[in-house]
């Protein structure tokens, strides 16, 4: 039992309701004509409890990264609400905050990037990189800043003496630690981790995942962990949400989702991941066709053309996200009747 579980209140730190991000496809230079929209995020709803980790999984183009960015208000959403229980501002809707409030909010919501090679300014020392949030927000400067940075570097497992060096002197794993230190500088409540271990070697991934878990325990952090790697997500998340072409198709507690998936796409994802055991060589469910185009999605359920369980209703009517079991949400017309394959075999 870790501290995070004990500290976990029933308080929702983040509540996302009907979030939409439609990017216009334009033609022309001075006079632009809108040809259509890429529906990157299309009516997504989920929540994260304080101290918890929500894993957000899906393949390329599903909208998970855009969702992460929307929560940080890097884009202005087309529609929807993002309720956040900010430590200083109280319960606010991130989607409608003004500039002043946003500056405050951004202390409490931080981001860890995927690529450790492009997310650190090569012309800044570690002291400057990790200290910048403190400086910019007027939290510390001079010798106090140095002390804070030294503490942060120690917390992520780097020697404080390294603060005079530049990023190029460090390996991928070490750079990712620098990114983590930077994200923690202002004691955030929520950290959005956008594929933080995907670019790292296998043995280093384990180090960084362990670090993230330790820090969560120590500082009571809440994570939105975005990844396409199902085994990594399973390891680190309390709850998991699955996205497909801008839609949230299923969300549940981790163990529940992996043992009892209720959406055919989740089943296919679980089945497709190659298992690191030659004795588990079963034929995976291989989906036909290509991932749908978010600028021109299929009618009805976006997944229906690739779904082996589809019925007529699936091509005409979009399914709604429904709570099919306590805390288990699915958007599928046949969720009640289907018995799908989870990681431990067929569901009952």
């Amino acid at each position: 039992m870790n501290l995070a579980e004990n500290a976990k209140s029933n308080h929702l730190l983040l509540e996302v309701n009907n979030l939409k991000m439609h990017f216009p496809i334009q033609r022309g230079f001075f006079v632009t004509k809108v040809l259509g929209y890429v529906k990157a995020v299309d009516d997504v709803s989920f929540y994260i409890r304080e101290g918890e980790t929500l894993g957000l999984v899906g393949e390329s183009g599903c909208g998970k990264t855009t969702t992460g960015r929307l929560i940080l208000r890097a884009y202005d959403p087309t529609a929807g609400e993002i309720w956040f229980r900010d430590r200083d501002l109280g319960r606010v809707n991130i989607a409608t905050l003004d500039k002043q409030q946003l500056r405050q909010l951004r202390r409490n919501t931080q981001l860890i990037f995927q690529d450790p090679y492009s997310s650190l300014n090569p012309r800044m020392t570690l002291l400057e990189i990790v200290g910048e949030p403190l400086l910019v927000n007027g939290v510390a400067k001079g010798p106090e800043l140095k002390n804070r940075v030294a503490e942060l570097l120690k917390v992520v497992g780097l020697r404080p003496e390294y603060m005079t060096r530049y990023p190029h002197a460090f390996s991928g794993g070490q750079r990712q630690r620098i990114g983590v230190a930077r994200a923690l500088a202002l004691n955030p409540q929520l950290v959005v981790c956008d594929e933080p271990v995907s670019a790292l070697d296998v043995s280093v991934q384990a180090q960084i995942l362990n670090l993230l878990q330790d820090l969560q325990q120590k500082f009571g952090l809440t994570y939105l962990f975005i990844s396409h790697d199902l085994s990594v997500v399973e390891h680190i998340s309390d709850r998991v949400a699955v996205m497909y072409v801008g839609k949230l198709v299923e969300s549940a507690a981790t163990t529940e989702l992996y043992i009892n998936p209720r959406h055919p796409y989740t089943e296919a994802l679980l089945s497709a991941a190659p298992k690191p055991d030659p004795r588990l060589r079963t034929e995976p469910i291989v989906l036909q066709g290509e991932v749908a185009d978010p600028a021109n999605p299929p009618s009805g359920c976006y997944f229906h053309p690739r779904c082996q369980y589809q019925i007529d209703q699936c091509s005409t009517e979009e399914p709604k996200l429904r709570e099919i079991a306590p805390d288990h949400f699915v958007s599928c017309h046949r969720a009640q009747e289907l018995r799908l394959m989870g990681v431990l075999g067929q569901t009952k």
Partner: protein
Amino acid sequence: MDNTLLEVKNLKTYFFLDEGTARAVDGVDFEIKRGQTLGIVGESGCGKSVTARSVLRIVPKPGRIVEGEITLHRLVAKQDGSKMTDLIRLTEVDPMGSLMRGLRGSEMALVPQEPMASLSPVHTIGDQIGEAIRLHQKVSKAEARAKTIQMLELVGFPRPKQRVDAYPYQLSGGLRQRAVIAMALSCHPSLLIADEPTTALDVTTEAQILKLMRSLQQELGMAIMYITHNLGVVAQMTERVIVMYMGKVVEEANVDTIFHNPLHPYTSALLRSIPRLGMKARERQRLASIRGTVPDPYAIPKGCSFHPRCDKKIRGVCDQQEPTYIEVEPGHKARCVLYKQ
């Protein structure tokens, strides 16, 4: 009949740079039998890609093969219909000569990681695959086009007759990789070298490509040298595995043995450090990570290159002498002082 297809003996490929000499491949031995899949596993910098490129003799400057032998056993059909094996020492042949250029693409083909890196953006996939066919076979343009469409069908390309004239930018990642595989297979190679072919693809697309490669291998009877750092893919795709670290092979065995009875500390540490699907459902565990990082190639540790990160190291031994590569049990080799012949 001789079942060996490729033999690599004591291969050393070094890169001569201003900063020093990087011993990317430093004494590697292995062999691949006809129709077999050999997995080459290792993390960044272990030398697996350079090994593949050494076999194809396309090591970029300032790298070159400094020692060792690579022998290809090519099957040649004789006049009377029987087959004989032609032994070609790839290390002794001119890499840019007509013999090597004749082998590259026809006898041995490469499917690299990034399909966009190997496809020309300004030519249609039909033209590119057709070019590969006409380079190695005496056929007309029309015949090449027909064969191209056949290959696209073979790799599961949707509507090949229409899409043969598509440009790479018009295709998704999965389709591009299929086009590259079609190109690699167009001359029916006896050896396919796949260098992380699915790393850049989504997991459901990866499942499609892996299934395709398995069925093609059965159909065409070709051998595959499968290079990857993904242990899940190794477990699903390979028969024999070699594990590389800092330019050397540290362990070699059947895939089942590697996963269920690893001998080298690096192999076991690697297996313990990966999260496995269903693990949480059974037990909650902290991942056992390997401490430290892969050393700088210009500052390789004395003795066994893995010893600073090894939890089984013996002081005074592992930091002084390099362990020899020995056969611990039949078909299972390891490079570690913990084991005797």
